[in-house]
């Protein structure tokens, strides 16, 4: 009972720590706490760092577009550049940061952004050891969620005020940025982080925070976060809050709430191999009752099937085809149970070499 | 020319007119304000020479009674020649469709002053452009007058409405007017029915028969002009609903005395509310409903409210539900309701032949027959069609082509009639008995082969029927199973799958493409095509022809009921479950409700009881059996 209460308290304090209200200063999100302050510290993005360091030295920079999967350091880099150019004093007056949680409809582009962009700034005088070039920076985070209209409106603003303003666009999918904008920018692609980089970063944080992670937990962190360092750190912090300083791989999985234990996936696949429909149906029911998200189930099933040695290529192809279809159906809002059951049935037919075509369909 | 204005393109004309008038003069603004104050009143006394016009319609009543000099706006310029011409000469007989009293005026109109004439002129003028009523042009010659107005019924014999209904209306008014009016309540008569079945005409005739003054509130049409004023803040904009409310308020408080300038015998006044103001959204509707409710409860003047039922095809939509609610609310307030049916084609034929005789036109009886049938019980439409048809007589193509195929397209009014024909064609799926000779260069598999149609391409039939995709799919779904072979369950499966495809397509434009009308149009017609062709293709063993009735989709009823039940559940959710939690309705429906039923007798003291009984008493399909529509279609 006492343990239960303690957990409850932990949970409450976790809620508080969720970047919402600064109730406790010490509960600053680690993502912020360990954000690299210098461009050269940004992990793994060597080419980007090389080019940008050069930019910093000459204090001359074009409009920039950073793209790549989440948690690879795009925002970090942009902020670091801004800080290194202007220093803490000028930063507020020279940098405008807008992300998706701000309203960025066409009206904001027309008013707020334009007003900020139109302000002239003094010529480049070095202040306090910072280059302080004669322009301002507007950072548009998650730019791919801006409407096309808003992006079009930006076009003119960019051109008109290019003397005194630089734009940094940050997005996950470059295809969602309209071509005229993209062509005005220097593009930088951010690669997903490799496992070693991730591990070294996590270890660094663990050392700083006095955490104890075994090897298994370390590898779990990097697999469940799928190359997204921010997510990895968030999980780590969550686990530390809930379970104290020594964290196991199981703790991490339960915090992430995403990954389905391998046994469950294995059980479903085994049921499919057995060729017994009712058994498979029971497993599917179990997955649903346990509350595992089926979309996640599909992607884990996919991984297991693709890597399996005892399944022929043709069987894999047959299974994966249906997996893809089911995933699309789920996105459309189809029922999870029915889709998973169909996937299981199809997998079973593939694995047991039953005919793929239905015999009674007219 | 005037006819064209009225029946075909008057919308366009009036629009052009307003565009033309886009720069307002000071006079416009002034007069507009005045009209807003007076309200959309048109007033006429029975059995009197002069007609007093308090105000005419909104939109363009500048300079009424002020003579020509005051008319400085472009509006006056638009009709310079007709005015003096008309004002001086030509006793126009019964040009006014609106008031029975005005008809009796015709004989003495010569004596009325020029100012009076101007007033009529203005009125007419406004009416044409605001489109509140279809009137003729300026009566320059009787030949050019619209027959609809020319042959407006003046006596009971001329009415095409069923005798019983007329008698009902007449006796109702007689009771009200002749007996003392102290017995409160029951002073309102609601007449419902489709357009053009003679609702207003009946009232006019009854009023003139009883010698009663007819006061009319006519729904003014909102105009572009008004919107302009509204936007530029130069005039005071009063919404139609506000005007209506104000009018009802006045009537309730002061009766009609304050309005009628002369102290005519007040006992014989009839108030006519011809169609209700347009309402959009729940708030406006609720206001209208309350307003009418009050009127019904408190008025002392016999009042007739005419409500036009628009096509009830999509009865699941909000508009129809609102109308239904309105009817109920009026009835609950004590109003008497009389429903007019579409006029029978025999009655229409009688009227049409009479007109032909009087106009000395020679029209074949088959043509009259055709027009009468195609009008769908709308006498106004039938007469207009007849007049139009007579215009066309000179056309060279008339005698050459076969009349049935050409003309039914021009005169068809009511969608449902031809919709049923089209549905019949699709459902019966008549095919040639042999496939066309000649080798197909791209032979298909056996199971995809079908014999050629014995009709036009389905899309053509659809466009002739003006079929909307959604009702078409619903009708097909409701009826198609009757037309399948008893053994052919495969066909049923194929057909239903295609209908499902159509449904998916129809739903798709609710989301992303909603604003793109062009895309919507394409999706709509594609969905209709798939539904129809799916039914034709899937039904691979068409049955031999036989009689079948086409049912109205039960789906609509069912949707309405399930919505109703769901609302009920949502409303009672918190109460019934002691506010434990706001549970999903699906859980209530699937678990609590059945369990409550079991537990009912034990929990009688408990509130749960209330829920289960109430919902059980709620609606199920059996209680109100859907009336199968009488549209029997035969095999052609």
């Amino acid at each position, binding site marked *: 009972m006492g343990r239960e209460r303690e957990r409850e308290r932990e949970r409450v304090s976790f809620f508080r720590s*969720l970047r919402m209200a600064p109730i406790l200063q010490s509960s600053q999100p680690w993502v912020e706490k360990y954000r690299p302050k210098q461009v050269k510290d940004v992990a793994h993005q060597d080419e980007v760092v090389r080019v940008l360091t050069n930019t910093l030295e000459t204090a001359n920079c074009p409009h920039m577009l950073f793209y790549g999967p989440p948690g690879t350091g795009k925002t970090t880099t942009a902020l670091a550049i801004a800080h290194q150019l202007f220093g803490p004093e000028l930063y507020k007056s020279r940098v405008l940061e807008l992300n998706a949680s701000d309203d960025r409809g066409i009206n904001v582009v027309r008013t707020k952004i334009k007003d900020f962009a139109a302000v002239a700034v003094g010529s480049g005088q070095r202040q306090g050891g910072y280059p302080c070039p004669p322009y301002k920076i507007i950072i548009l985070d998650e730019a791919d969620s801006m409407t096309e209209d808003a992006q079009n409106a930006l076009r003119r603003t960019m051109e008109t005020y290019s003397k005194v303003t630089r734009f940094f666009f940050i997005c996950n999918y470059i295809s969602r940025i309209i071509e005229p904008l993209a062509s005005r920018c220097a593009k930088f692609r951010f690669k997903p982080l490799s496992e070693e980089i991730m591990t070294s970063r996590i270890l660094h944080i663990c050392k700083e925070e006095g955490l104890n992670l075994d090897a298994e937990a370390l590898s779990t962190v990097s697999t469940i976060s799928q190359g997204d360092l921010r997510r990895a750190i968030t999980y780590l912090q969550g686990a530390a809050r809930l379970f104290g300083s020594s964290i196991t791989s199981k703790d991490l999985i339960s915090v992430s709430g995403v990954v389905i234990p391998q046994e469950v996936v294995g059980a479903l696949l085994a049921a499919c191999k057995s060729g017994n429909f009712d058994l498979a149906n029971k497993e599917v029911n179990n997955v649903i009752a346990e509350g595992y998200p089926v979309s996640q189930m599909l992607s884990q099933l996919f991984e297991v099937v693709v890597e399996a040695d005892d399944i022929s290529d043709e069987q894999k192809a047959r299974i994966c085809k249906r997996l893809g279809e089911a995933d699309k159906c789920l996105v459309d809002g189809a029922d999870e149970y029915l889709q998973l059951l169909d996937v299981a049935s199809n997998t079973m037919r593939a694995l047991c070499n039953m005919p793929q075509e239905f015999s009674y369909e007219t | 020319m005037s006819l064209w204005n009225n029946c075909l393109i008057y919308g366009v004309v009036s629009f052009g007119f307003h565009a033309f008038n886009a720069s307002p003069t000071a006079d416009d603004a002034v007069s507009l304000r005045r009209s807003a104050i007076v309200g959309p009143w048109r007033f006429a006394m029975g059995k009197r020479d002069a007609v007093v016009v308090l105000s005419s319609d909104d939109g363009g009543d500048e300079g009424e009674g002020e003579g020509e000099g005051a008319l400085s706006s472009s509006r006056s310029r638009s009709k310079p020649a007709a005015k003096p011409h008309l004002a001086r000469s030509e006793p126009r007989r019964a040009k006014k469709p609106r008031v029975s009293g005005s008809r009796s005026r015709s004989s003495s109109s010569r004596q009325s002053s020029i100012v009076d004439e101007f007033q009529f002129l203005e009125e007419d003028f406004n009416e044409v452009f605001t489109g509140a009523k279809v009137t003729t042009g300026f009566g320059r010659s009787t030949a050019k007058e619209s027959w609809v107005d020319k042959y407006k019924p003046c006596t009971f014999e001329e009415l095409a409405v069923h005798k019983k209904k007329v008698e009902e209306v007449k006796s109702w008014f007689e009771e009200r007017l002749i007996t003392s009016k102290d017995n409160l309540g029951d002073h309102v008569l609601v007449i419902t029915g489709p357009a053009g079945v003679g609702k207003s005409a009946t009232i006019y005739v009854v009023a003139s028969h009883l010698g009663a003054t007819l006061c009319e509130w006519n729904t003014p049409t909102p105009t572009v002009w008004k919107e302009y004023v509204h936007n530029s803040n130069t005039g005071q904009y009063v919404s139609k609903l506000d005007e209506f409310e104000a009018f009802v308020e006045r009537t309730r408080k002061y009766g009609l005395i304050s309005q009628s300038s002369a102290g005519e015998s007040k006992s014989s006044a009839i108030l006519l509310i011809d169609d209700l103001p347009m309402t959009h959204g729940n708030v406006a509707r609720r206001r209208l409903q309350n307003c009418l409710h009050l009127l019904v409860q408190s008025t002392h003047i016999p009042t007739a409210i005419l409500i036009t039922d628009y096509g009830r095809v999509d009865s699941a939509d909000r508009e129809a539900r609102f109308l239904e609610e309105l009817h109920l609310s009026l009835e609950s307030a004590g109003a008497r309701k009389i429903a007019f049916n579409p006029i029978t084609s025999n009655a229409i034929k009688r009227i049409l032949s009479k007109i032909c005789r009087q106009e000395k036109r020679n029209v074949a009886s088959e043509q009259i027959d055709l027009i009468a049938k195609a009008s769908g019980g709308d006498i106004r439409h039938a007469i207009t069609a007849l007049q139009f048809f007579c215009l066309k007589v000179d056309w060279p193509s008339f005698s050459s082509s076969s009349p049935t195929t050409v003309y039914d397209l021009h005169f068809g009014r009511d969608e449902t009639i031809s919709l049923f024909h089209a549905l019949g064609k699709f459902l019966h799926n008549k095919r040639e008995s042999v496939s066309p000779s000649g080798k197909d260069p791209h032979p298909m598999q056996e199971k995809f082969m079908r014999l050629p149609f014995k009709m036009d391409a389905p899309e053509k039939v659809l466009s002739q029927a003006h079929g909307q995709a959604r009702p078409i799919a619903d009708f097909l779904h409701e009826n198609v199973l009757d037309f399948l072979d008893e053994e052919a369950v495969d066909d049923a499966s194929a057909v239903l799958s295609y209908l499902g495809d159509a449904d998916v397509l129809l739903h798709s434009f609710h989301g992303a493409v909603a604003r793109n009308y062009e895309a919507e149009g394409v999706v709509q017609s594609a969905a209709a095509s798939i539904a129809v062709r799916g039914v034709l293709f899937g039904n691979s063993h068409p049955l031999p022809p036989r009689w079948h009735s086409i049912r109205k989709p039960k789906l609509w009823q069912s949707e309405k009921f399930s919505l109703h*039940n769901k609302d009920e559940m949502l409303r009672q959710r918190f109460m019934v479950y002691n506010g434990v939690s706001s549970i999903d309705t699906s859980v209530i429906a699937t678990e609590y409700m059945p369990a409550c039923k079991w537990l009912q007798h034990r929990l009688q003291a408990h509130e749960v009881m209330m829920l289960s009984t109430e919902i059980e008493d709620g609606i199920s399909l059996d209680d109100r059996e859907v009336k199968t529509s009488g549209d029997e279609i035969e095999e052609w």
Partner: protein
Amino acid sequence: MRNIDIELTTLSSTHHVEMNPSDAGFQDRYVVQEIIKEMAKNRPIDTKGKKRFKVLVLNEVDKLSREAQHSLRRTMEKYSASCRLILCCNSSSKVTEAIRSRCLNIRINAPREDQIVKVLEFIAKKENLQLPAGFAARVAEKSNRSLRRAILSFETCRVQQYPFTINQVISPMDWEEYVSEIVSDIMKEQSPKRLFQVRGKLYELLIKCIPPEILLKRLLHDLLGKLDAELKHEVCHWAAYYEHRMRLGQKAIFHLEAFIAKFMSIYKAFLIATFG
């Protein structure tokens, strides 16, 4: 400026508000924005400085439209100082990544059957009921791992017959019985006429607000219990297929019926192939 009227029932105390924003249908977006804003304004003042925020419980978050979820994400950040959210949903698949990543995800699995049995035994003890051996287990088994369902049917059994007997019938919900009836109907005869009769029954179920996907699942469940193994694959495939179409479409009846017609067609072919 537009005014929109939305009726929504909420359950609230001084510290929390609970509601189902998805009741508002396609206007759920406004509910999410406005209610949270309203709550942020009326922030509870506590002198001791203890509870400085309200708790807002949103049920059925997975049924919210995408737009609503998007604006939820924004509002929950904007007003985080004064209110905290607890979001409940049946499946996290339908909640966007953006919201999930801003919350602590807690998966709550359905109770296992032995856990349900324990609860039932506890209730029996409190209510002074004699439980025959294995009876609670049977109730639990029928409940499909839903505790609410188990307790409801336990109470129903108590009303129907007490003292309990070992092989007492645990009656299914009335609509489930109705579905079973439909299933035996369509297995007996496969014809357009029978299909038409079934349609009437489906309408009745829909009028009672049984959600069509639950209806379809129940149909499948009953069918699977009666079919040969080789047909099961086929039928479950079509169930998944038509349920997906139903979600894309608007009129559930079209797709429910198409599924039944498909089944009839398959089953008829199967019968002909098996018995000639």
